[in-house]
């Protein structure tokens, strides 16, 4: 089991992730309805459906191209807070990076670390603000630790998935500082942030693909 994906495989992993996100629409709708405006599921569906169409019909020279295509498609088609936030999660990390032709734990950790910085720069949210950062930041920390330990990609994704899920769970305990749940104050406590759950589904989906299709 090699520990990296080529461009083609990276694309397939993203296609699978997109499909899983689209399937999660009803659940995400339910979560965003409880404390937001209920459109997160639809938004993610629109973004990932458009991204998958681009992935299916395009040709890609590098890993960077794939991240950029997914992210920029989300930014330009989704709208809402999550269009920018999740678009930046994918397109924000590869900005200015040298073209890569293999994705391994190290390069994924680097891309995602830069992406996290970009999302925080755009959105001004920190852990504890009840946003996707609650899941994304611990996931990125896990990726970095795996990279430092030279874990393979699957192991790195397992750790990221685990931390993202824990982060999403933790988001239940927070009051919201952003978006429409903010006005709920303490009434939002007990509900997870929909975007944090999305992050955990994204890492889970990536892990599932890598687990099944080898790496």
């Amino acid at each position, binding site marked *: 089991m090699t520990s990296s994906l080529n461009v083609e495989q990276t694309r397939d992993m993203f296609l699978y992730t997109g499909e899983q996100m689209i399937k999660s629409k009803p659940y995400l709708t339910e979560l965003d*309805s409880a404390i937001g405006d209920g459109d997160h599921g639809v938004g993610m569906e629109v973004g990932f459906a458009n991204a998958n169409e681009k992935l299916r019909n395009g040709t890609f020279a590098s890993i960077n191209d794939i991240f950029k295509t997914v992210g920029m498609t989300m930014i330009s088609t989704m709208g809402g807070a999550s*269009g*920018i936030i999740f678009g930046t999660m994918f397109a924000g990390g590869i900005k200015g990076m040298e073209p890569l032709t293999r994705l391994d734990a190290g390069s994924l950790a680097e891309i995602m670390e830069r992406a996290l910085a970009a999302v925080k720069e*755009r959105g001004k949210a920190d852990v504890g603000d009840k946003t996707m950062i609650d899941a994304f930041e611990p996931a990125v920390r896990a990726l970095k630790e795996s990279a430092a330990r030279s874990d393979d990609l699957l192991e790195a994704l397992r750790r990221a998935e685990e931390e993202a899920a824990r982060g999403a769970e933790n988001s239940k305990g927070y009051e919201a500082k952003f*978006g429409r749940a903010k*006005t709920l104050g303490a009434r939002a406590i007990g509900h997870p942030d929909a975007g944090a759950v999305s992050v955990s589904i994204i890492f889970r989906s990536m892990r599932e693909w890598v687990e099944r299709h080898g790496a």
Partner: protein
Amino acid sequence: MKKLINQPEHVVREMIEGFIAAYGRDYRMLENVNGVVRKEKKDKVAIVIGGGSGHEPLFIGFVGEGMADGAAMGNVFAAPPPDTVLAVTKAVDAGKGVLYLYGNYAGDVLNFDMAAELAEMEGIETRTVRITDDVASAPSDRIHDRRGIAGDVMVFKIAGAAAEAGLPLEEVERLARKANDNTRSIGIALTPGTLPGADRPTFTLPDDEIEFGMGIHGEPGIRREKLQPADRLVDHMMDLLLADLPFRAGDEVVVLINGLGSTTLMELLIVNRRVAQVLRDKGISVYDTDVGSLCTTQEMGGMSITLMRLDDELKHFYDQPAYTPYYQKRKR
């Protein structure tokens, strides 16, 4: 839920096509994005408004003479993507700069800000005024966290007149900000609305309760309380509203009684009757009033009261004519 639509995914595009089918003599739509602009480009500062769809006639209905030059529309309750805002910006820019006016919501801020960066790269100067009239959405010490609701219309009116008068971008921006600073709104909801395609309303309310201060996407307000006679509800709303700026005896205001969707014009007029009484009692004079459903939340039941305090400068721009499909004023 029962809606007259085809497919939920197509509502915004089909709405725009229907708008152009009706008003295409004066407006055109952009090709790949959900934007509408005036057909005739004016040699002046351009005003771009926008936000999520589902609040019609806001925003699409307020493009036109003396108001906005273009509207960027997102999906229902979702900010438009930066590409849409950028395309509208490019379509209306006449080289004198573009002013962005929108309600202060996280998604809109993110998307319009990114569009502004993209516009800058294309050599178009933009300024932004975020509308923050909803007093229920944050206390007055966090006034910049407040959301924009029906007060949008007041800001569009003043900024639109300033732009039409040929003022430079900084001046149009200053006047828009001044209009926003002098505008306050508060809303109540009686019954929920439903998003196209959703099988449940956006919230539920007991049969005898209202949500005081609810936002235009169903954001919770300040408190739930029993439904009471209209006059009492208005009195409570006016207490909050008047104390906020504060509005004082001797002030002159413009009033907007805004329906949220299914509340009848009869009810809105009954509300206005009381609003006028309260203002008279407080020694505040009413310069002009509009009563109608201008900023809605699908078929939500309820209404909002908006007051804009005038000084001579604001009054001058308020007096200028405006003519759009859903907002008209003759020169006064």
